[in-house]
């Protein structure tokens, strides 16, 4: 079956612009996670959804970051007024449910802020 997909694969934007990153989880997966990976670093947790509610938003770095999810489907991560420090790969993962250990990752969106 289809895996987790993310779009766009790459995004270059100018400082100060808003960007939207999209994640399509595996069909039937109710839990969805967003992580950020700065160059040469490990992944940092941003937010997760169980269904369309977000029980844990503790990793969002500032109020410029927001995310939403439609039902148990697509999620969008929005970064407003982008800054150069937002440049990173943004990875999405999905899981059968929030209390299941295995997460399946998408290929990520590489965001470059110039």
């Amino acid at each position, binding site marked *: 079956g289809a895996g987790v997909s993310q779009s766009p694969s790459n995004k270059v934007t100018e400082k100060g612009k808003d960007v939207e990153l999209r994640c399509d989880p595996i069909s039937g997966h109710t*839990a969805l*996670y967003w*992580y950020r990976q700065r160059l*040469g*670093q*490990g*992944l*940092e*947790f941003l937010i*997760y959804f169980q269904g369309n509610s977000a029980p*844990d938003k503790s990793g969002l770095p500032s109020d410029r970051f927001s995310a939403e999810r439609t039902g148990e489907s697509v999620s969008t991560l929005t970064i407003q007024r982008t800054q150069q420090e937002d440049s990173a*790969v943004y*990875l999405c*993962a999905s*899981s059968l449910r*929030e*209390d*299941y*250990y*295995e*997460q399946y*990752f998408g*290929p*990520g969106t*590489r965001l470059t802020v110039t």
Partner: protein
Amino acid sequence: AQTVTQSQPEMSVQEAETVTLSCTYDTSESNYYLFWYKQPPSRQMILVIRQEAYKQQNATENRFSVNFQKAAKSFSLKISDSQLGDTAMYFCAFMKGGAGGTSYGKLTFGQGTILTVHP
């Protein structure tokens, strides 16, 4: 809060040889999971192996095995018969456990170790 530390930024190994990647972690949780993920240049994160903290037996998946030392909070990955396709960045990760064998899905990652397998 949990922390995961990988002290080897880069490692290299000859094809067919064995290599061990190190990971230590810190937590006050008694129930948790530990993972090794592989990230090749394609960026696709792939689960290599997992270990439940309540299990004493070390996990094994084909050429991959772990040495889980709970008291020392150490979780190393051994790759036997290394192959060129094993070249990737490897991440150690922690997940808090819940009741009845469940988990709380947020992963905490180490900084990663770049492994290069030479022919």
